[in-house]
């Protein structure tokens, strides 16, 4: 057990080594570059705020992937689910007017969750009813979502009343602005109580503590409830789960849609705190990073939160080394890719070794 926990560590070390090699290739000293990165990330209040902000969507994404994975479902569709969640939340955000904030904001967040849930319902039904492999169907759903959202933004919701931006000839292809009552407050006030002053131009917001709380909640759900027990049973061995009387299809469907519901929250931190509208360049890729976060965190609640922060740290660090050490920030993207690969390889190798040990121990016992 202790042995198996080492695999993320091995992966991090290995990927840092690969990153260092690339830095040497472009004639930089890895020690110096990583030094710059650490100073940039840890020594500045705005970096701290940015890391908190960047970690938020990754926590939700990692939790969404992780929960489905418990039921043996690889939800590659978080990518599309958060886009549909975001567009629905945006629609509630700009379309509904006159509500007080304590109603409007929860409504917008709920809309995001519904959007994600609906988008996951299609591949979930296809899987349990028709046996369609969820990886392929969710990839297809991702692209359909991308084009659908593009259509909604450009042709249906397009804000034709917007003030032209000085120096930019044409209007932006985006939705109308989301009402103030649906915007998520920042956590600056809370952190000020703890004596941490975040600069105004950082966007750490209340979805972060919400995400951490959700991580704790999923831990209890998975490990302490009958439903969680059923989800894990179905994930490990659907045949035995079925023979014991667990409804396999129903359990898979619930877990898949629950995963989609969480996925619907992924885009909201950007949408309801940073942008305040949805445009055609809405951030992409959180879903795929979520796969990495769930794996790196070994699919535990605490691990996922930690991995989300690590990825946020790397992203922020990438900006730092590009600006201050003139190393292309893509070194960090490569490093992240290597990290995912090495985590699964390390987990497999270490796991095999641990199983052998266990078997020997059991034979002796």
């Amino acid at each position, binding site marked *: 057990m202790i042995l198996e926990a080492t695999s993320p560590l091995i992966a991090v070390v290995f990927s840092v080594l690969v990153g260092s090699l*690339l830095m040497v290739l*472009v004639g930089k000293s890895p020690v110096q570059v990583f030094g710059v990165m650490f100073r940039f990330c840890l020594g500045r209040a705005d970096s701290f705020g940015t890391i908190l902000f960047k970690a938020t969507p990754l926590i939700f994404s990692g939790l969404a992937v992780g929960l489905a994975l418990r039921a043996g479902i*690889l939800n*590659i569709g978080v990518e599309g689910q958060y886009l549909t969640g975001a567009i629905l939340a945006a629609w509630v955000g700009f379309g509904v007017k006159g509500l007080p904030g304590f109603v409007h904001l929860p409504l917008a967040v709920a809309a995001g969750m519904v959007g994600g849930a609906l988008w996951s319902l*299609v591949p979930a039904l*296809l899987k349990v009813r*028709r046996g*369609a*492999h969820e*990886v*392929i*169907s969710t*990839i*297809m*759903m991702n*692209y*359909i979502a991308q*084009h*659908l959202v*593009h*259509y909604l933004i*450009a*042709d249906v919701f397009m804000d034709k009343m917007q003030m032209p931006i000085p120096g930019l000839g044409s209007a932006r292809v985006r939705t109308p602005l989301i009402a103030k009552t649906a915007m998520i407050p920042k956590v600056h006030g809370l952190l000020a109580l703890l004596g941490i002053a975040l600069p105004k131009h950082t966007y750490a917001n209340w979805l972060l503590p919400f995400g951490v709380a959700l991580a704790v909640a999923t831990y209890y759900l998975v490990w302490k409830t009958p439903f969680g027990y059923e989800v894990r049973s179905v994930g490990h061995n659907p045949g035995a789960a079925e023979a014991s009387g667990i409804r396999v299809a129903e359990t898979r469907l619930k877990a898949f849609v629950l995963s989609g519901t969480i996925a619907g929250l992924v885009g909201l931190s950007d949408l309801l705190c940073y942008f305040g509208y949805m445009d055609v360049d809405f951030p992409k890729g959180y879903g*795929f*990073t979520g*796969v*990495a976060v769930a*794996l790196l965190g070994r699919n535990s609640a605490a691990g996922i939160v930690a991995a989300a922060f690590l990825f946020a740290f790397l992203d922020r660090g990438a900006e730092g080394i590009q600006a201050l050490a003139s190393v*292309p920030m*893509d*070194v*960090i*993207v*490569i*490093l*992240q*890719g*290597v990290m*995912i*690969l090495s985590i*699964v*390889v390390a*987990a*497999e*190798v270490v796991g095999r070794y641990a199983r052998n040990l266990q078997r020997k121990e059991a034979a002796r016992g």
Partner: protein
Amino acid sequence: MSLVGEFVAEMMASAIRMGIPILLAALGAIFSERSGVINIGLEGMMMFGAFFGALGSYLGGPVLGLALAIAGGTALAFVHAMGSVTFRVNQIVSGVALNILAYGCVRFSSITIFKMATTSPHVAKLASIDVPSLSRIPVLRPLFGGVSPMVPLAVCLALASYWLIQRTVFGLRLRAVGENPLAADTVGVPVPPLRYVGVLLSGALAGLAGAYLSIEHTGMYVEGMTQGKGYIALAATIFGDWSPLRASAVAMLFGFAESLSFRVVEGGTIPYQFIKMIPYAMTLAVLAGVVGRSRPPASSGVPYEREGE
């Protein structure tokens, strides 16, 4: 009359231009999946092909470009093969990681070599060919005149793939390894080497598909030029029931949908985004069993482990 004919010919030519990269990558997906390895990393391998193709063409002409593209795609495929065959990790995860890795590598190389993250300078194309006599008929001119030599090459590769998979001992063994590796192993067919070959071939073909995009189609490398074509190729594979000829036909169909989406923008009756959804929606319909039924190789995606290892 000839105006309509020319329009149809032009549409077909455009569909072929759009369909060729999907076709090549789909052939790649077939080799990999028939051997039992799902290759989600196809997209990344195409990115490698597009970039290294442009780089090779920039440095020493289009032929070197093709060679580098194939080498790049194969190199990335080798990593996928190591992960999925040797280390038996989750093949989907490996593919997702490779796509992220490829994105980073290509941008990094582009900045380091071209000093620009997103584009390369213009690069030389292969000499285009006119099909003798047919290209002189005015109506057929768009179809048979000034054709990229990679179009006939792709057609040959599709036929060759069919022959290789269906008619040779190698193909039989490849399919056996993808359907029932245990049985194959029992009769002495080496499982891991064949899976390596399947994955490496898929990388080479995906690299070639990428090279077509950068060298032949655009004449330069542009970031994001693969636009999910690797995934569309997976869709074509499923829709084509893992058969080279049927998947090629589907690739052309998807190419047609894509070229149609450009024209609809001008027409403006149907939003072009909906035309772009066609390949994905069609694949979902196949997955749901609404339109025909397709069956993947039985052991595709399942790592093979000998007992007691």
